[in-house]
Protein backbone atom coordinates (compact mmCIF):
# COMPACT_ATOMS: atom_id res chain seq x y z
CA UNK A 1 0.00 0.00 0.00
CA UNK A 2 2.80 2.35 0.93
CA UNK A 3 4.72 1.57 -2.26
CA UNK A 4 1.63 2.23 -4.29
CA UNK A 5 1.01 5.57 -2.63
CA UNK A 6 4.61 6.62 -3.22
CA UNK A 7 4.29 5.53 -6.83
CA UNK A 8 1.18 7.62 -7.26
CA UNK A 9 2.82 10.69 -5.73
CA UNK A 10 5.88 10.31 -7.97
CA UNK A 11 3.71 9.92 -11.06
CA UNK A 12 1.74 13.00 -10.09
CA UNK A 13 4.87 15.08 -9.54
CA UNK A 14 6.39 14.01 -12.85
CA UNK A 15 3.20 14.73 -14.77
CA UNK A 16 3.03 18.08 -12.99
CA UNK A 17 6.55 18.99 -14.07
CA UNK A 18 5.90 17.99 -17.67
CA UNK A 19 2.68 19.99 -17.70
CA UNK A 20 4.44 23.02 -16.28
CA UNK A 21 6.98 22.95 -19.08
CA UNK A 22 4.25 22.55 -21.68
CA UNK A 23 2.33 25.40 -20.11
CA UNK A 24 5.34 27.73 -20.17
CA UNK A 25 6.04 26.87 -23.81
CA UNK A 26 2.46 27.23 -24.98
CA UNK A 27 2.04 30.43 -22.94
CA UNK A 28 5.19 31.92 -24.40
CA UNK A 29 4.29 31.15 -28.00
CA UNK A 30 0.69 32.27 -27.49
CA UNK A 31 1.79 35.56 -25.91
CA UNK A 32 4.29 36.33 -28.70
CA UNK A 33 1.77 35.47 -31.40
CA UNK A 34 -1.00 37.43 -29.63
CA UNK A 35 1.18 40.52 -29.44
CA UNK A 36 2.69 40.22 -32.89
CA UNK A 37 0.22 38.58 -35.26
CA UNK A 38 -1.95 41.66 -35.68
CA UNK A 39 1.02 43.56 -37.03
CA UNK A 40 2.02 40.97 -39.63
CA UNK A 41 0.98 41.74 -43.17
CA UNK A 42 2.36 41.18 -46.63
CA UNK A 43 3.64 44.76 -46.54
CA UNK A 44 5.38 44.14 -43.18
CA UNK A 45 7.08 41.00 -44.46
CA UNK A 46 8.36 42.47 -47.70
CA UNK A 47 9.19 46.16 -47.23
CA UNK A 48 12.40 47.62 -45.80
CA UNK A 49 12.43 49.17 -42.32
CA UNK A 50 11.95 52.90 -41.66
CA UNK A 51 14.19 54.66 -39.19
CA UNK A 52 11.94 57.59 -38.13
CA UNK A 53 8.58 57.13 -39.81
CA UNK A 54 6.01 54.52 -38.89
CA UNK A 55 5.10 51.66 -41.22
CA UNK A 56 8.51 50.03 -41.69
CA UNK A 57 8.82 46.34 -42.53
CA UNK A 58 11.31 43.56 -42.02
CA UNK A 59 11.71 42.23 -45.56
CA UNK A 60 15.51 42.42 -45.90
CA UNK A 61 16.04 41.15 -42.34
CA UNK A 62 13.84 38.13 -42.94
CA UNK A 63 15.71 37.39 -46.15
CA UNK A 64 19.06 37.88 -44.37
CA UNK A 65 18.14 35.41 -41.65
CA UNK A 66 17.17 32.74 -44.17
CA UNK A 67 20.17 33.36 -46.39
CA UNK A 68 22.58 33.36 -43.46
CA UNK A 69 21.05 30.08 -42.34
CA UNK A 70 21.76 28.53 -45.73
CA UNK A 71 25.32 29.86 -45.86
CA UNK A 72 26.08 28.69 -42.32
CA UNK A 73 24.64 25.24 -42.88
CA UNK A 74 26.56 24.88 -46.14
CA UNK A 75 29.76 25.18 -44.10
CA UNK A 76 28.63 23.57 -40.85
CA UNK A 77 26.97 20.40 -42.08
CA UNK A 78 29.84 18.92 -44.16
CA UNK A 79 32.50 19.97 -41.65
CA UNK A 80 30.51 18.79 -38.64
CA UNK A 81 29.48 15.46 -40.12
CA UNK A 82 32.99 14.84 -41.45
CA UNK A 83 34.61 15.55 -38.10
CA UNK A 84 31.92 13.54 -36.31
CA UNK A 85 32.60 10.53 -38.54
CA UNK A 86 36.29 10.86 -37.82
CA UNK A 87 35.78 11.07 -34.07
CA UNK A 88 33.41 8.14 -34.01
CA UNK A 89 34.93 5.74 -36.53
CA UNK A 90 38.54 6.59 -37.29
CA UNK A 91 40.07 8.30 -34.26
CA UNK A 92 41.86 5.94 -31.91
CA UNK A 93 40.94 6.20 -28.25
CA UNK A 94 43.98 8.03 -26.91
CA UNK A 95 44.88 11.24 -25.12
CA UNK A 96 44.79 13.30 -28.31
CA UNK A 97 41.21 12.38 -29.14
CA UNK A 98 40.20 12.84 -25.51
CA UNK A 99 41.71 16.33 -25.76
CA UNK A 100 39.88 17.08 -29.01
CA UNK A 101 36.65 15.99 -27.37
CA UNK A 102 37.35 18.32 -24.46
CA UNK A 103 38.03 21.22 -26.82
CA UNK A 104 34.74 20.52 -28.61
CA UNK A 105 32.89 20.54 -25.29
CA UNK A 106 34.50 23.79 -24.18
CA UNK A 107 33.83 25.42 -27.52
CA UNK A 108 30.16 24.55 -27.31
CA UNK A 109 29.81 26.27 -23.95
CA UNK A 110 31.47 29.52 -25.10
CA UNK A 111 29.33 32.63 -24.64
CA UNK A 112 28.13 33.71 -28.05
CA UNK A 113 29.25 37.33 -27.50
CA UNK A 114 32.81 36.04 -27.17
CA UNK A 115 32.44 34.14 -30.42
CA UNK A 116 31.21 37.40 -31.94
CA UNK A 117 34.31 39.22 -30.74
CA UNK A 118 36.48 36.42 -32.03
CA UNK A 119 34.74 36.76 -35.38
CA UNK A 120 35.35 40.51 -35.35
CA UNK A 121 39.07 40.09 -34.66
CA UNK A 122 39.73 37.16 -36.98
CA UNK A 123 37.26 37.16 -39.86
CA UNK A 124 36.32 40.85 -40.03
CA UNK A 125 39.66 42.48 -39.22
CA UNK A 126 42.42 39.95 -39.85
CA UNK A 127 40.91 38.43 -43.00
CA UNK A 128 39.48 41.79 -44.15
CA UNK A 129 36.04 40.35 -44.65
CA UNK A 130 34.42 43.50 -43.22
CA UNK A 131 30.94 43.20 -41.73
CA UNK A 132 29.53 40.57 -44.03
CA UNK A 133 27.28 37.56 -44.33
CA UNK A 134 30.38 35.44 -44.87
CA UNK A 135 31.97 36.62 -41.61
CA UNK A 136 28.66 36.03 -39.83
CA UNK A 137 28.33 32.55 -41.31
CA UNK A 138 31.87 31.65 -40.21
CA UNK A 139 31.27 32.94 -36.68
CA UNK A 140 28.07 30.90 -36.47
CA UNK A 141 29.98 27.90 -37.80
CA UNK A 142 32.42 28.19 -34.90
CA UNK A 143 29.38 28.40 -32.68
CA UNK A 144 27.56 25.41 -34.17
CA UNK A 145 30.35 23.07 -35.15
CA UNK A 146 30.76 21.49 -31.70
CA UNK A 147 27.08 20.62 -31.64
CA UNK A 148 27.20 19.05 -35.11
CA UNK A 149 30.36 17.08 -34.34
CA UNK A 150 29.04 15.75 -31.08
CA UNK A 151 25.63 14.87 -32.45
CA UNK A 152 27.14 13.03 -35.43
CA UNK A 153 29.61 11.19 -33.25
CA UNK A 154 26.93 10.08 -30.81
CA UNK A 155 24.53 9.12 -33.58
CA UNK A 156 27.15 6.89 -35.21
CA UNK A 157 28.17 5.40 -31.88
CA UNK A 158 24.51 4.55 -31.36
CA UNK A 159 24.43 2.30 -34.44
CA UNK A 160 24.60 -1.31 -33.20
CA UNK A 161 28.01 -2.88 -33.68
CA UNK A 162 26.44 -5.86 -35.48
CA UNK A 163 25.27 -3.55 -38.26
CA UNK A 164 28.78 -2.31 -38.86
CA UNK A 165 30.16 -5.84 -38.69
CA UNK A 166 27.52 -7.10 -41.10
CA UNK A 167 28.67 -4.53 -43.64
CA UNK A 168 32.35 -5.36 -43.14
CA UNK A 169 31.68 -9.10 -43.27
CA UNK A 170 30.09 -8.70 -46.70
CA UNK A 171 33.41 -7.37 -47.93
CA UNK A 172 32.37 -3.72 -47.94
CA UNK A 173 35.15 -1.21 -47.40
CA UNK A 174 35.12 0.75 -44.19
CA UNK A 175 33.93 3.90 -45.94
CA UNK A 176 31.17 2.07 -47.79
CA UNK A 177 30.00 0.54 -44.52
CA UNK A 178 29.92 3.95 -42.85
CA UNK A 179 28.30 5.81 -45.73
CA UNK A 180 25.73 3.23 -46.82
CA UNK A 181 24.91 1.26 -43.68
CA UNK A 182 25.67 3.43 -40.67
CA UNK A 183 24.92 6.99 -41.82
CA UNK A 184 21.38 6.15 -42.98
CA UNK A 185 20.68 4.61 -39.57
CA UNK A 186 22.19 7.61 -37.79
CA UNK A 187 20.35 10.03 -40.05
CA UNK A 188 17.36 10.85 -37.78
CA UNK A 189 19.64 11.79 -34.88
CA UNK A 190 21.92 13.83 -37.12
CA UNK A 191 18.88 15.60 -38.55
CA UNK A 192 17.69 16.51 -35.07
CA UNK A 193 21.11 17.99 -34.36
CA UNK A 194 20.99 19.92 -37.61
CA UNK A 195 17.61 21.38 -36.71
CA UNK A 196 18.92 22.44 -33.30
CA UNK A 197 21.92 24.08 -34.94
CA UNK A 198 19.66 25.82 -37.44
CA UNK A 199 17.44 27.10 -34.67
CA UNK A 200 20.46 28.68 -33.03
CA UNK A 201 21.34 30.43 -36.29
CA UNK A 202 17.85 31.96 -36.46
CA UNK A 203 17.89 33.04 -32.87
CA UNK A 204 21.46 34.20 -32.51
CA UNK A 205 22.09 37.94 -32.16
CA UNK A 206 25.19 38.46 -30.03
CA UNK A 207 27.58 36.55 -32.27
CA UNK A 208 26.36 38.50 -35.29
CA UNK A 209 26.53 42.09 -34.00
CA UNK A 210 30.19 42.48 -34.92
CA UNK A 211 30.38 39.98 -37.77
CA UNK A 212 27.35 40.16 -40.04
CA UNK A 213 26.81 43.70 -38.79
CA UNK A 214 23.80 45.76 -37.78
CA UNK A 215 22.95 47.30 -41.13
CA UNK A 216 21.73 46.16 -44.50
CA UNK A 217 22.52 48.03 -47.71
CA UNK A 218 19.64 48.91 -49.99
CA UNK A 219 18.91 45.62 -51.73
CA UNK A 220 17.65 45.21 -55.23
CA UNK A 221 15.64 41.98 -55.20
CA UNK A 222 15.68 41.88 -58.99
CA UNK A 223 19.46 41.61 -59.02
CA UNK A 224 20.60 38.00 -58.54
CA UNK A 225 24.27 38.47 -59.42
CA UNK A 226 26.02 37.28 -56.23
CA UNK A 227 29.01 39.55 -56.85
CA UNK A 228 27.06 42.80 -57.09
CA UNK A 229 27.05 44.85 -53.89
CA UNK A 230 23.30 45.55 -54.13
CA UNK A 231 22.39 41.96 -54.80
CA UNK A 232 20.71 40.16 -51.90
CA UNK A 233 22.81 37.09 -52.73
CA UNK A 234 26.18 38.81 -52.28
CA UNK A 235 27.81 37.00 -49.34
CA UNK A 236 30.25 39.87 -48.75
CA UNK A 237 27.69 42.52 -47.90
CA UNK A 238 26.68 43.42 -44.36
CA UNK A 239 23.42 41.86 -43.24
CA UNK A 240 21.28 42.58 -40.24
CA UNK A 241 19.28 39.49 -39.32
CA UNK A 242 15.82 39.38 -37.83
CA UNK A 243 17.10 38.63 -34.34
CA UNK A 244 19.61 41.49 -34.49
CA UNK A 245 16.89 43.77 -35.85
CA UNK A 246 14.62 42.95 -32.91
CA UNK A 247 17.41 43.74 -30.50
CA UNK A 248 18.23 47.00 -32.27
CA UNK A 249 14.66 48.22 -32.48
CA UNK A 250 14.03 47.43 -28.86
CA UNK A 251 17.15 49.21 -27.67
CA UNK A 252 17.40 52.20 -29.99
CA UNK A 253 14.40 52.19 -32.32
CA UNK A 254 13.17 55.73 -33.03
CA UNK A 255 10.19 54.90 -35.22
CA UNK A 256 6.89 55.59 -33.41
CA UNK A 257 5.70 52.04 -34.02
CA UNK A 258 8.95 50.42 -32.79
CA UNK A 259 7.27 48.27 -30.09
CA UNK A 260 4.76 46.90 -32.60
CA UNK A 261 7.51 46.17 -35.10
CA UNK A 262 9.53 44.33 -32.47
CA UNK A 263 6.47 42.32 -31.49
CA UNK A 264 5.64 41.53 -35.10
CA UNK A 265 9.22 40.58 -35.88
CA UNK A 266 9.34 38.30 -32.83
CA UNK A 267 6.18 36.55 -33.96
CA UNK A 268 7.61 36.12 -37.44
CA UNK A 269 10.83 34.72 -36.00
CA UNK A 270 8.91 32.18 -33.93
CA UNK A 271 6.73 31.17 -36.85
CA UNK A 272 9.73 30.73 -39.17
CA UNK A 273 11.54 28.60 -36.59
CA UNK A 274 8.45 26.43 -36.10
CA UNK A 275 7.88 26.09 -39.84
CA UNK A 276 11.51 25.17 -40.32
CA UNK A 277 11.35 22.59 -37.55
CA UNK A 278 8.26 20.85 -38.88
CA UNK A 279 9.43 21.10 -42.47
CA UNK A 280 12.84 19.60 -41.69
CA UNK A 281 11.30 16.81 -39.67
CA UNK A 282 8.81 15.97 -42.39
CA UNK A 283 11.53 15.97 -45.02
CA UNK A 284 13.79 13.91 -42.75
CA UNK A 285 11.11 11.30 -42.20
CA UNK A 286 10.51 11.05 -45.93
CA UNK A 287 14.23 10.58 -46.62
CA UNK A 288 14.60 8.06 -43.80
CA UNK A 289 11.68 6.04 -45.13
CA UNK A 290 13.28 5.97 -48.53
CA UNK A 291 16.56 4.77 -47.03
CA UNK A 292 15.03 2.08 -44.90
CA UNK A 293 12.01 1.02 -46.98
CA UNK A 294 9.73 1.47 -43.96
CA UNK A 295 6.19 2.65 -44.39
Amino acid at each position, binding site marked *: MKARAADRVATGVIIGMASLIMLVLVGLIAYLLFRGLSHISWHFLTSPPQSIKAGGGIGPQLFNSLYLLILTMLITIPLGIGAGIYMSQYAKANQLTAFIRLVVEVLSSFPSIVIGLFGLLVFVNLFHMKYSLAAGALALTVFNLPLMVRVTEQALNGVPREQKEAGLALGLSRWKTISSIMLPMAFPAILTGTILAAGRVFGEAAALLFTAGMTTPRLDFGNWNPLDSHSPLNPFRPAETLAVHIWKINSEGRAPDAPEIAAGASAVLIIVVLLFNFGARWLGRAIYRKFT*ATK
Partner: protein
Amino acid sequence: MSDTAFYTKDLSVFYGEKQAIKKVSITFPERQVVAFIGPSGCGKSTFLRSLNRMNDVIPGARVEGEIRIGGRDINDPSTDVVRLRQKIGMVWQKPNPFHKSIYENIAFGPRYHGVKDKRNLDEIVESSLRKTALWDEVKDRLHGSALALSGGQQQRLCIARSIAVQPSILLMDEPASALDPVSTAKIEELIAELKRDYSIVIVTHNMYQAARVSDKTAFFLMGDLIEYDETQKMFTNPSNRATDDYISGRFG
Protein backbone atom coordinates in the same frame (compact mmCIF):
# COMPACT_ATOMS: atom_id res chain seq x y z
CA MET B 1 38.14 -37.97 -45.96
CA SER B 2 37.43 -34.65 -47.57
CA ASP B 3 39.90 -31.92 -48.43
CA THR B 4 41.04 -29.22 -46.08
CA ALA B 5 39.25 -25.90 -46.49
CA PHE B 6 41.52 -23.96 -44.15
CA TYR B 7 43.43 -24.38 -40.94
CA THR B 8 44.85 -22.52 -37.97
CA LYS B 9 48.20 -23.18 -36.39
CA ASP B 10 49.06 -22.09 -32.85
CA LEU B 11 46.46 -19.36 -33.03
CA SER B 12 46.35 -17.06 -30.00
CA VAL B 13 44.07 -14.07 -29.54
CA PHE B 14 44.58 -11.41 -26.90
CA TYR B 15 42.28 -8.69 -25.63
CA GLY B 16 44.81 -6.29 -24.15
CA GLU B 17 46.67 -8.38 -21.57
CA LYS B 18 44.10 -11.13 -21.41
CA GLN B 19 44.68 -14.18 -23.58
CA ALA B 20 41.32 -15.37 -24.89
CA ILE B 21 42.64 -18.13 -27.19
CA LYS B 22 45.72 -20.18 -26.36
CA LYS B 23 47.68 -21.65 -29.26
CA VAL B 24 44.85 -23.45 -30.98
CA SER B 25 45.42 -25.53 -34.11
CA ILE B 26 42.39 -26.78 -36.02
CA THR B 27 41.97 -28.10 -39.54
CA PHE B 28 38.60 -27.43 -41.13
CA PRO B 29 37.44 -29.95 -43.75
CA GLU B 30 35.89 -28.62 -46.93
CA ARG B 31 32.07 -28.66 -47.22
CA GLN B 32 31.52 -29.98 -43.74
CA VAL B 33 30.09 -28.45 -40.59
CA VAL B 34 32.38 -27.89 -37.63
CA ALA B 35 30.71 -27.01 -34.34
CA PHE B 36 32.39 -25.12 -31.50
CA ILE B 37 31.04 -25.90 -28.06
CA GLY B 38 32.07 -24.85 -24.58
CA PRO B 39 30.87 -22.76 -21.64
CA SER B 40 30.41 -18.98 -21.94
CA GLY B 41 33.67 -17.10 -22.14
CA CYS B 42 35.65 -20.12 -23.33
CA GLY B 43 36.77 -18.26 -26.44
CA LYS B 44 34.74 -20.01 -29.11
CA SER B 45 33.20 -16.80 -30.47
CA THR B 46 36.56 -15.06 -30.32
CA PHE B 47 38.07 -17.86 -32.34
CA LEU B 48 35.27 -17.66 -34.89
CA ARG B 49 35.63 -13.89 -35.24
CA SER B 50 39.35 -14.16 -35.84
CA LEU B 51 38.69 -16.28 -38.95
CA ASN B 52 37.43 -13.28 -40.94
CA ARG B 53 39.44 -10.76 -38.95
CA MET B 54 36.31 -9.34 -37.39
CA ASN B 55 38.32 -8.82 -34.20
CA ASP B 56 40.03 -5.96 -36.04
CA VAL B 57 36.96 -3.94 -35.09
CA ILE B 58 37.63 -4.42 -31.37
CA PRO B 59 40.20 -2.03 -29.92
CA GLY B 60 43.07 -3.82 -28.20
CA ALA B 61 42.49 -7.19 -29.88
CA ARG B 62 45.67 -8.87 -31.13
CA VAL B 63 46.31 -12.13 -32.96
CA GLU B 64 49.35 -14.43 -33.02
CA GLY B 65 49.90 -17.60 -35.02
CA GLU B 66 48.61 -18.59 -38.41
CA ILE B 67 45.26 -18.79 -40.11
CA ARG B 68 45.76 -20.18 -43.58
CA ILE B 69 42.95 -19.98 -46.10
CA GLY B 70 43.91 -21.10 -49.59
CA GLY B 71 47.53 -21.31 -48.49
CA ARG B 72 47.79 -17.65 -47.47
CA ASP B 73 48.07 -16.38 -43.94
CA ILE B 74 45.12 -14.01 -43.60
CA ASN B 75 46.87 -11.95 -40.93
CA ASP B 76 49.71 -11.16 -43.30
CA PRO B 77 49.91 -7.37 -43.84
CA SER B 78 49.55 -7.89 -47.60
CA THR B 79 46.12 -9.50 -47.18
CA ASP B 80 43.27 -7.50 -48.70
CA VAL B 81 40.86 -7.79 -45.78
CA VAL B 82 37.92 -6.54 -47.85
CA ARG B 83 38.48 -9.33 -50.42
CA LEU B 84 39.00 -11.85 -47.66
CA ARG B 85 35.72 -11.06 -45.98
CA GLN B 86 33.84 -11.34 -49.23
CA LYS B 87 34.93 -14.98 -49.32
CA ILE B 88 33.79 -15.61 -45.75
CA GLY B 89 30.15 -15.11 -44.87
CA MET B 90 29.11 -14.41 -41.30
CA VAL B 91 25.88 -14.80 -39.36
CA TRP B 92 25.33 -13.37 -35.87
CA GLN B 93 23.41 -14.47 -32.84
CA LYS B 94 20.86 -11.71 -33.12
CA PRO B 95 19.49 -11.28 -36.64
CA ASN B 96 20.94 -8.04 -37.98
CA PRO B 97 19.39 -7.28 -41.35
CA PHE B 98 20.24 -3.87 -42.75
CA HIS B 99 17.55 -1.27 -42.24
CA LYS B 100 16.65 -1.52 -45.89
CA SER B 101 14.22 -3.45 -48.05
CA ILE B 102 14.42 -7.24 -48.32
CA TYR B 103 15.65 -6.89 -51.88
CA GLU B 104 18.31 -4.34 -50.95
CA ASN B 105 19.57 -6.46 -48.08
CA ILE B 106 20.63 -9.08 -50.58
CA ALA B 107 21.41 -6.99 -53.66
CA PHE B 108 23.60 -4.56 -51.74
CA GLY B 109 26.66 -6.81 -51.47
CA PRO B 110 26.75 -8.16 -55.05
CA ARG B 111 26.10 -4.68 -56.47
CA TYR B 112 29.02 -3.31 -54.49
CA HIS B 113 31.20 -6.13 -55.80
CA GLY B 114 30.43 -5.25 -59.39
CA VAL B 115 27.10 -6.79 -60.44
CA LYS B 116 25.36 -3.79 -61.97
CA ASP B 117 22.88 -5.43 -64.31
CA LYS B 118 19.37 -5.35 -62.88
CA ARG B 119 18.44 -8.75 -64.27
CA ASN B 120 21.54 -10.39 -62.79
CA LEU B 121 20.80 -8.81 -59.44
CA ASP B 122 17.22 -10.04 -59.57
CA GLU B 123 18.52 -13.54 -60.22
CA ILE B 124 20.97 -13.38 -57.33
CA VAL B 125 18.23 -12.15 -55.00
CA GLU B 126 15.87 -14.91 -56.06
CA SER B 127 18.40 -17.74 -55.90
CA SER B 128 19.75 -16.57 -52.52
CA LEU B 129 16.24 -16.44 -51.11
CA ARG B 130 15.42 -19.83 -52.57
CA LYS B 131 18.53 -21.38 -51.06
CA THR B 132 17.42 -20.14 -47.66
CA ALA B 133 13.82 -21.28 -48.22
CA LEU B 134 12.60 -17.72 -47.89
CA TRP B 135 11.53 -16.99 -51.44
CA ASP B 136 7.94 -18.20 -51.19
CA GLU B 137 7.43 -16.30 -47.97
CA VAL B 138 8.72 -12.93 -49.16
CA LYS B 139 8.48 -12.84 -52.96
CA ASP B 140 5.44 -10.54 -52.84
CA ARG B 141 7.04 -7.97 -50.57
CA LEU B 142 10.65 -7.80 -51.74
CA HIS B 143 10.62 -4.03 -51.51
CA GLY B 144 9.14 -3.90 -48.04
CA SER B 145 11.32 -3.41 -44.99
CA ALA B 146 13.40 -6.36 -43.83
CA LEU B 147 12.60 -5.36 -40.25
CA ALA B 148 8.98 -6.34 -40.74
CA LEU B 149 9.98 -10.01 -41.00
CA SER B 150 9.85 -12.39 -38.03
CA GLY B 151 13.07 -13.17 -36.16
CA GLY B 152 13.50 -16.52 -37.87
CA GLN B 153 12.87 -15.01 -41.30
CA GLN B 154 15.32 -12.20 -40.54
CA GLN B 155 17.98 -14.74 -39.63
CA ARG B 156 17.43 -16.65 -42.88
CA LEU B 157 17.57 -13.31 -44.72
CA CYS B 158 20.93 -12.64 -43.09
CA ILE B 159 22.17 -16.03 -44.30
CA ALA B 160 20.84 -15.23 -47.78
CA ARG B 161 22.60 -11.89 -47.63
CA SER B 162 25.92 -13.49 -46.83
CA ILE B 163 25.74 -16.19 -49.53
CA ALA B 164 24.75 -13.59 -52.15
CA VAL B 165 28.38 -12.47 -52.41
CA GLN B 166 29.47 -16.06 -53.12
CA PRO B 167 31.63 -16.92 -50.14
CA SER B 168 33.20 -20.36 -49.73
CA ILE B 169 33.10 -20.35 -45.93
CA LEU B 170 30.21 -19.52 -43.59
CA LEU B 171 30.79 -18.53 -39.98
CA MET B 172 27.78 -18.74 -37.70
CA ASP B 173 27.86 -17.37 -34.18
CA GLU B 174 25.00 -19.05 -32.30
CA PRO B 175 22.68 -18.46 -35.25
CA ALA B 176 19.61 -19.98 -33.62
CA SER B 177 19.96 -19.09 -29.97
CA ALA B 178 17.65 -16.07 -30.24
CA LEU B 179 14.97 -17.99 -32.15
CA ASP B 180 11.96 -20.15 -31.28
CA PRO B 181 12.14 -23.95 -31.75
CA VAL B 182 10.35 -23.95 -35.13
CA SER B 183 12.67 -21.31 -36.56
CA THR B 184 15.63 -23.13 -35.04
CA ALA B 185 14.63 -26.33 -36.83
CA LYS B 186 14.45 -24.41 -40.10
CA ILE B 187 17.92 -22.97 -39.59
CA GLU B 188 19.29 -26.43 -38.83
CA GLU B 189 17.70 -27.86 -41.98
CA LEU B 190 19.22 -24.99 -43.87
CA ILE B 191 22.69 -25.72 -42.49
CA ALA B 192 22.38 -29.31 -43.69
CA GLU B 193 21.50 -27.99 -47.16
CA LEU B 194 24.21 -25.34 -47.24
CA LYS B 195 27.08 -27.64 -46.41
CA ARG B 196 26.85 -29.04 -49.91
CA ASP B 197 28.29 -25.72 -51.11
CA TYR B 198 30.03 -24.17 -48.15
CA SER B 199 32.44 -25.03 -45.38
CA ILE B 200 30.56 -24.07 -42.25
CA VAL B 201 31.75 -23.23 -38.74
CA ILE B 202 29.03 -22.85 -36.14
CA VAL B 203 29.33 -21.74 -32.54
CA THR B 204 26.55 -23.11 -30.38
CA HIS B 205 25.49 -23.26 -26.77
CA ASN B 206 23.16 -26.09 -27.52
CA MET B 207 24.93 -29.45 -27.46
CA TYR B 208 22.03 -31.25 -29.08
CA GLN B 209 22.28 -28.79 -31.92
CA ALA B 210 25.99 -29.50 -32.30
CA ALA B 211 25.24 -33.21 -32.35
CA ARG B 212 22.48 -32.75 -34.93
CA VAL B 213 24.14 -30.46 -37.44
CA SER B 214 27.90 -30.96 -37.30
CA ASP B 215 30.38 -33.41 -38.73
CA LYS B 216 33.15 -32.45 -36.38
CA THR B 217 33.07 -30.80 -32.98
CA ALA B 218 35.64 -28.77 -31.10
CA PHE B 219 35.35 -28.34 -27.34
CA PHE B 220 36.87 -25.19 -25.84
CA LEU B 221 37.57 -24.42 -22.21
CA MET B 222 39.18 -21.24 -20.90
CA GLY B 223 40.75 -20.46 -24.27
CA ASP B 224 42.19 -23.96 -24.73
CA LEU B 225 41.07 -26.43 -27.33
CA ILE B 226 40.39 -29.49 -25.18
CA GLU B 227 39.28 -31.90 -27.84
CA TYR B 228 38.50 -31.90 -31.55
CA ASP B 229 37.12 -34.94 -33.29
CA GLU B 230 34.30 -36.45 -35.32
CA THR B 231 31.05 -35.32 -33.74
CA GLN B 232 29.80 -38.85 -33.34
CA LYS B 233 32.90 -39.89 -31.44
CA MET B 234 32.88 -36.73 -29.31
CA PHE B 235 29.33 -37.37 -28.16
CA THR B 236 29.56 -41.10 -27.63
CA ASN B 237 33.10 -41.75 -26.59
CA PRO B 238 35.14 -38.61 -25.88
CA SER B 239 38.81 -39.10 -25.07
CA ASN B 240 38.99 -36.30 -22.56
CA ARG B 241 37.43 -36.31 -19.14
CA ALA B 242 36.46 -32.61 -19.29
CA THR B 243 34.67 -33.12 -22.61
CA ASP B 244 32.74 -36.00 -21.13
CA ASP B 245 31.78 -33.93 -18.10
CA TYR B 246 30.63 -31.00 -20.22
CA ILE B 247 28.68 -33.05 -22.73
CA SER B 248 26.93 -35.06 -20.08
CA GLY B 249 25.95 -31.85 -18.32
CA ARG B 250 28.09 -32.12 -15.20
CA PHE B 251 29.17 -28.47 -15.57
CA GLY B 252 28.80 -25.50 -17.90
